[in-house]
Every structure is written in structure tokens, then in C-alpha cells.
């Protein structure tokens, strides 16, 4: 009862409230649907992170202890875990220095000292000193000693106050190009690693495209042609390719396509020659306009391909997905679908 019926009841009740709460004019229900339910979810998910983190730690430590395959990587994983924990929960690593009462004639000198100590722009610091009597130096110091050292250099020019950033705020505080230890880990270790993984996508797209664009059947040929048109149409070189040139290529390609179907080669050649002649006459009459005929101009063609057939196909899939989501959600809300509870 506890394991199945109660969770099912919760799902049904909350699901129905969320579904029909959208229509009620009751403020309490509206608040629950729009704000409270999502906040409850955020709180539960935040506490649930402990489960995952402990599981991760346990697995990595067991791997090290049992010296399983590639256990050395697990040492890095555990060290990284504890280092981030240390920087987030134990070591604040964020101190600010504020300066007040600096005489106007000393602004330049003080700006020079601050600029040297913080690797910042002198002009910007001077402007900041002139604008504020109580000026916060644009740097977050990771150690109190570092903040005190600069404070001591500036103590003869005005009153310096060294303040630790509040716990919590220290995770995201940033002044100038500096932040806390946690901020440093995020910006100089985590972000470059994420960017590296993201950058791999470029190479994976290339390799996936190479495999997808091989001419195996009609659909693959169509995909390849559309891909070429879209790629060329989106780069500057596509605008430089004359639509007349593309038109001639198209006529020759059509000739190649119909040649196997027509037994009499004279008819095939006549069709191709006629096509070339018509296009030539058209070109002469229009003065070989560089953007016409639009049907053969890559930028116009790619825009049409993107806006019409691609959008139509994407919307069709989205409608299907939307209906699938509606159907699945409805089955879950009415209790018909219980597989996610482990029930079959």
C-alpha cells in the first residue's frame, strides 16, 4: 500500500490540481500551480542531490579500494569532489577591500597602487575614486592576507575596510576579473572543460554528416542536395555563385537523370539543348541579373527550404510529440500508466 497506492494517489491528486488549476480563479490554487508546486519540486530535487553525490563518492572510493580497472581516474574524481566541497562550504576565499577618505590630489597615486595590485586599468580606477567617496576595489581576494597586504599599502591614503563576502554569495561574487576560489574553479577549470566537450560537437557533426550524406538512395541524395544548398546559401560565397550557372548545372543534371529513361538519345540531347537555349535567351533578355532566376539563387533557395518544407516537417513532428506528451501525461494522471512506479 505504502509503496504503490500512496505515490499513485499523490500523482493523481497533484496532477488533477495542476491540470484544472489553470482554469480556477482561486488565488490559492493559482499560486500553488504557478509557484508553490515548482518550488516544492526544486527543494526536493536540491535535497535529493545528496543521494546522487553520496552514490558517486561511494562508487569511486570502492573502485580505488578494490583497485579496479582505471582506478587512478577515480582518485581524480574524489579529489575534485572534495576540492569543490572545500571551496563551496569550508573555505570562503572571498574578501573585498573598500577605501574611503582619499584626498582628491592622491587619486592618481592611489589608482596606480590599486592598478598594480589588482592588474586593472588605472583610468577606470581613477574614475571610480572620483565618483565614490567609499570606493570598493574591483578585485575579490582569495586570502585575507592578500586583502590585508593591499590594505596596508593604501592605509596611508585613506581608511581601508576588509570585508569577507557573505557565505552563499561567495559562490558567484565577481569584481573586475576576479572572484572567490569557487568562482575560480568554475571559470578556469569547469567552463573550459565544458567548452571542450561542446567543441567536440563540431567534429562529430562533420563525421555524422559524412556518413549521412553518402548517396545510397533517393532520400539520401535529397538530403545531400538540400544540405549543400543550405550550406552554400548561408555563407557569403553562396551569394557570389551566379543563379544562371546553377541553372545550367540543373539542366545538365536533369538530362543525366532522364537519359536512362529515354531510349532515343536524340530526344534527350534535344531536351537538354532546348533547356540551355531557353535559359540563355532568358539571361540575355534580363541582362544576366545576378539574383535571378530566384529559384536557382542559393540564398533565396535555402531560405525557402528552411522556411517551408523544413518548418512543415518540424512542426508535424512537434505536433506528434505534443500529442504524445498529452497522451502520456493523461495516462499518468488517471493512474493508467504505473510503470514508472515499478509496476507493470
Amino acid at each position, binding site marked *: 500500500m505504502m509503496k504503490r497506492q500512496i505515490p499513485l494517489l499523490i500523482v493523481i491528486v497533484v496532477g488533477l490540481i495542476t491540470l484544472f488549476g489553470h482554469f480556477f480563479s482561486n488565488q490559492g490554487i493559482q499560486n500553488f500551480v504557478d509557484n508553490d508546486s515548482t518550488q516544492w519540486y526544486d527543494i526536493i530535487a536540491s535535497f535529493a542531490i545528496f543521494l546522487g553525490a553520496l*552514490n558517486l563518492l561511494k562508487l569511486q572510493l570502492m573502485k580505488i579500494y578494490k583497485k579496479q580497472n582505471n582506478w587512478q581516474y577515480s582518485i581524480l574524481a574524489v579529489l575534485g569532489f572534495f576540492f569543490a566541497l572545500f571551496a563551496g562550504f569550508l573555505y570562503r576565499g572571498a574578501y573585498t577591500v573598500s577605501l574611503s577618505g582619499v584626498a582628491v590630489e592622491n587619486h592618481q597615486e592611489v589608482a596606480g597602487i590599486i592598478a598594480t595590485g589588482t592588474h586593472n586599468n588605472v583610468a577606470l580606477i581613477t574614475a571610480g575614486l572620483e565618483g565614490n567617496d567609499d570606493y570598493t576595489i574591483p578585485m575579490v581576494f582569495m586570502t585575507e592576507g592578500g586583502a590585508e597586504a593591499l590594505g596596508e599599502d593604501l592605509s596611508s591614503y585613506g581608511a581601508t575596510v576588509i570585508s569577507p563576502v557573505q557565505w552563499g554569495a561567495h559562490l558567484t561574487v565577481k569584481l573586475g576579473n576576479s572572484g572567490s576560489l569557487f568562482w575560480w574553479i568554475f571559470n578556469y577549470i569547469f567552463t573550459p572543460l565544458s567548452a571542450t566537450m561542446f567543441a567536440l560537437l563540431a567534429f*562529430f557533426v562533420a563525421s555524422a554528416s559524412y*556518413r549521412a550524406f553518402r548517396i545510397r538512395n533517393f532520400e539520401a541524395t535529397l538530403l545531400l542536395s538540400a544540405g549543400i544548398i543550405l550550406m552554400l546559401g548561408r555563407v557569403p560565397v553562396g551569394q557570389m555563385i551566379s543563379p544562371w550557372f546553377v541553372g545550367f548545372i540543373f539542366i545538365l543534371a536533369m538530362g543525366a537523370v532522364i537519359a536512362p529513361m529515354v531510349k532515343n538519345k536524340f530526344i534527350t540531347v534535344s531536351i537538354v539543348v532546348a533547356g540551355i537555349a531557353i535559359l540563355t535567351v532568358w539571361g540575355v533578355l534580363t541582362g544576366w541579373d545576378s539574383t535571378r532566376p530566384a529559384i536557382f539563387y542559393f540564398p533565396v533557395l535555402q531560405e525557402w527550404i528552411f522556411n517551408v518544407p523544413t518548418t512543415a516537417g518540424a512542426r508535424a*513532428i*512537434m505536433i506528434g510529440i505534443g500529442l*504524445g*506528451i*498529452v497522451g502520456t501525461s493523461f495516462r*499518468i494522471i488517471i493512474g493508467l500508466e504505473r510503470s514508472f512506479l515499478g509496476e507493470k
Partner: protein
Amino acid sequence: MNKRALILAGFGAVIILIYFQLLKSGIIFRPGNEPMFIAVILVSLTILFYTDRAKRGEKIYLRSIAGLQALEEAVGRATEMGKPVLFVPGIMDMDQVETVSGLIILGYVAEMTAQYEAGLNVPVSRSIVMEAARETCKESYLKQGRPDQYFDDMVHYLTDDQFAYAAGVNGIMLREKPAACFYQGKFYAESLILAETGNSIGAIQIAGTGSPSQIPFFVTACDYTLIGEEFFTASAYLSNRPELLGSIKGQDIVKLLVMICMILVFIFTGLHHYGWTNLDILTLFTSR
């Protein structure tokens, strides 16, 4: 006409009537959502009707879906090669319907791995998904009578971050070289990274997602892809339970109604545009 259909239609009409009456008084319902309310009632009753018909014994036809038929083939291949099966349930949490659908498919895959005694590795990106996936796998192994083969760590947490998770799963793929990789859930940019790495190790890959922008990547890199609503019908398809099959048919009928509405809107919008009718049909379908 079917008696039950009439009863349901009458019930729906009564609810809509009560809704509009109460709407006038402005006490219970807020204005501006009339089209949405009617749509919700219509969709709900349609699905309920066909679910009921299926429960009463009507045979429902579902076309064959290659990706779902290939699930067993993939697990069998992994068993023959003596390599594990990798299941990736997406990178989002249980608040996404795709994740729930992914876990439903996980249940069936776990049944097969239990039956064939193949290894199963499920790295997850969210703690709640980890717990739900463990519950699903445990039940599947129990159902197959192989509780001894199940262990909690077959479902393990990696990280919440998108690319760190992709890096972790890639590492698992390159080290353990699973013979079958399943990507069933909600994915974003990491989809191609996972699929290409799986391709490079020679694994058979079956993907399913409700993210329209990721479907082309999966189609290109995977052997089978569940496109759009195929992914959401997996539960009904694999279980063959009449009520679930009935709900799929109801969903299809709703799709038919949507197509009819689209055609009507197209025609009437054209007529309105050229001044042949005063009815601006779009106002009937717009919620404020």
C-alpha cells in the same frame, strides 16, 4: 451509435455547460481559457472512450515500430557478445514526460537483461531519476525471477551538468564498450556526442526522444530512432495492455480531430481574409 459514446458525450456536454454557467458568474473559473477547457475535456473523453472500448475487448491495431522491435535484438546481441547494455535515460529530471517514458522503456530493457543475464549499466544525471530507475530495474528483475542479479549500483549517478555527464557516459562507452546503447529520454546538445561515440565503438544504438531538434542527430548516428510519438507509445507497444493500446487509439483520434480543425481554420481564415465571411475562426481557438 455506441451507448457509451453517447453517455460520455453527454457527460462532456454537461461539464462544459456547467463551466460556461459558472464562468458567467465569475466565481470559480477565470475567463479567457474557454478553448483550452473544451480541448481538455474533448481530449480526455476521447482517450477515455477508446480506453474503455479496448478494455471491453476491441482489438486495437498498432503498426510495427522498428525501434521497439529491435530492443530485444539489441539485448540479445549484447548477450551473445558477452558485453553489457548501456541505457541512458536522458539528462533531465522526473518532471519531464520524456524521462518518465524513458524509464518505462528501461523497465522492459531490464526485464530482457534479467532474462538473458546480460549486464546493465544505467548512468543517470539526476538523483531522483536514479531512485526511480532503481525501483524500475529492481521490479523488472524480480518479475523475471532474477533478484540475485540485480544490484543497486547498476543505476548510478554521474553528474547534473550536461557536458560533464556526456563526458562521463563517453568514458563508460570507451572503457566498457557496451554492445548495445539505448538513449531514451530528453536530450539536448550532448545527443550527438553520445551517439557518435556509441557509433565509434560499434554498438547497436536505439534512440528515442521528444526533443525535435535532437531527432535528426539520432536518426543520423543511431541504428533505430523512435521519432516523435513513437517514443511515447513504447509503454503500450511493449506491454500490449488493452487499456494502454486503447489510449493510443484515442490519441490518434485526437490527432485526426486536430487535422480536421487545421483544415477548417485554413478554409475559414482564407474566406475571412477575402471578406466572404465575418467569422474570424482563430478567435475561437485562442486562449487569452
